[in-house]
């Protein structure tokens, strides 16, 4: 069966830095595909290229049976592909509820004319949007703060808000850029459960994460990037025992002279610390 997302030979260089160098992988609906790799491996760049934030210099992206390479982000959202951001991008001037209401933008329709004239159809749609957004907030335990400005939320709540916003429109696939970075153990656990619930509802998730425990626990498939290239792929167990993956993750720590610097730059634990 054709996978929901198919990425072929994605490449993008920033000046001399090959952030992505011929990366290919698939991600299925109703499954969690983790993408891991040391800091600077190109994970965020991959998400940016797939989601339409960047245009890849080479390679192709197929989503839901059609080629979407270079398609603008808002068009992809309408096809059911959305994302979250590593550096939080909540709409801080909007209320929490309104943030999630924007999450329903891709699946609603009332435009400028009906807004200006305040047509009944528009008001009906607004009510439906608000209800659905509220339900999405309840799903993630944010209903109590629905009317607070999003800028006032704690870091952990903002992370949850981003997920609620991305899932509100029931997309086919969400690209998640480090959803639990900086969260404590309890928050991480809750977020992990929310991800699993979404997957069980049939949403395809691409999970970029440095939290290996979480990745190994909930992923169906793991793709490993290093210096812009895919170095391994398989189920969590296979990847954990892959010699090349071990070398990439552990190699840096064994560096004798400059162990601290190499470890800080490369290790997953250090990655978390940097984002905390």
């Amino acid at each position, binding site marked *: 069966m054709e996978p929901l997302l198919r990425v072929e030979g994605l490449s993008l260089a920033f000046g001399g830095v090959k952030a992505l160098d011929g990366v290919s992988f698939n991600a299925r609906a109703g499954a969690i595909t983790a993408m891991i790799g040391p800091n600077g491996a190109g994970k965020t760049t991959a998400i*940016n290229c797939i989601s339409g934030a960047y245009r890849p210099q080479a390679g192709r992206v197929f989503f839901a049976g059609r080629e979407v390479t270079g398609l603008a982000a808002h068009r992809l959202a309408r096809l059911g592909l959305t994302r979250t951001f590593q550096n939080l*991008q909540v709409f801080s001037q909007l209320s929490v509820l309104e943030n999630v209401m924007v999450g329903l933008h891709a699946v609603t329709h009332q435009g400028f004319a009906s807004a200006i004239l305040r047509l009944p159809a528009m008001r009906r749609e607004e009510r439906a949007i608000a209800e659905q957004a509220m339900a999405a907030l309840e799903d993630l335990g944010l209903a109590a703060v629905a009317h607070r400005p999003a800028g006032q939320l704690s870091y952990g709540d903002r992370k949850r808000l981003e997920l609620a916003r991305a899932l509100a429109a029931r997309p086919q696939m969400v690209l998640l850029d480090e959803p639990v970075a900086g969260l404590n153990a309890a928050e991480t656990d809750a977020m992990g459960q929310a991800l699993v619930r979404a997957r069980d509802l049939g949403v395809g998730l691409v999970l970029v994460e440095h939290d290996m425990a979480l990745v190994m626990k909930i992923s169906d498939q793991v793709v490993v990037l290093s210096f812009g290239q895919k170095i391994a792929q398989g189920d969590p167990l296979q990847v954990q025992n892959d010699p090349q993956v071990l070398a990439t993750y552990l190699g840096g720590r064994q560096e004798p002279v400059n162990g601290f610097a190499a470890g800080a730059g490369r290790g997953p634990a250090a990655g978390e610390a940097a984002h905390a």
Partner: protein
Amino acid sequence: MSGAEQLSQYLISGLTTGAVYALVALGFCLIYNTTHIVNFAQGDFLSLGGLLLYSLLAGAGLALPLAFALTVLGSALVGAALERLALRQARSREVTVLIFITVAASVFLRGVFKEVWGKQALAVPSFSPETPLRLLGATFTPQNLWVVGITLAAIAGLGWFFNRTLTGKAMRAVAINPRAAALMGIDVERMLLYSFALAGGLGGVAGMLITPITTASYTIGVIIGLKGFAAAVLGGYGSFMGAVVGGLGLGLLESLGAGLMSSAYKDVIAFVVLLLVLFLRPQGLLGRGEAARV
């Protein structure tokens, strides 16, 4: 006059105004690179240069070199004041607000200039006696040479400053990544102050060069400032080479356009070019496209 003579006439006047646009464009780039804002008061630095020079020469009777140096100093001080007294004090860090602080400063400065120097155009003498020179059939004054010569010297000086001096390198570091620069022990706030002072000084120089040709007045910088902006965009906003190329290119285009078509719409050419560039090649002629990092 033959066609060729006319052409060289246009080229010379185009290069002269182009050099001034380049200086203004450099001022825009300097401030943009360190603060990411467009400084609308850049043109007013130019007005100030001409007006100060007028007062120091005609009013105080100073010798030209001294008046020149004092004017550079004066406009650099006003640039520094804009940073220290206005932008630094702002409660909001929103770019829109910061840009509008420079717009407000521009309006305010213009009001002050009007009170101090009045509304009339003031004649500033040329830097040397106005014996017409001839080259390839074109007639021009020594002031044209001064404009081009001093502009070249200023560009060379900037190049030396940014590549050879510690302060210059520190300013470049701040432009590339302020956070990292601060971690390296660079005093970022001081570098911002320097870039405004430098931009003010450059504007002052541009004003002194052009006002013997155009006369000085409190509004002279408005249009020239905007054209300098157009030149900066044309070259690729933020690129120093681009500013120079864009300035000269715009000056030539304008003078040829006005000469060959109609001089009534001379001022329009720069802005039509600006809109076209934004439409077709927003990264400018020399700039590299860069996506916003998310």
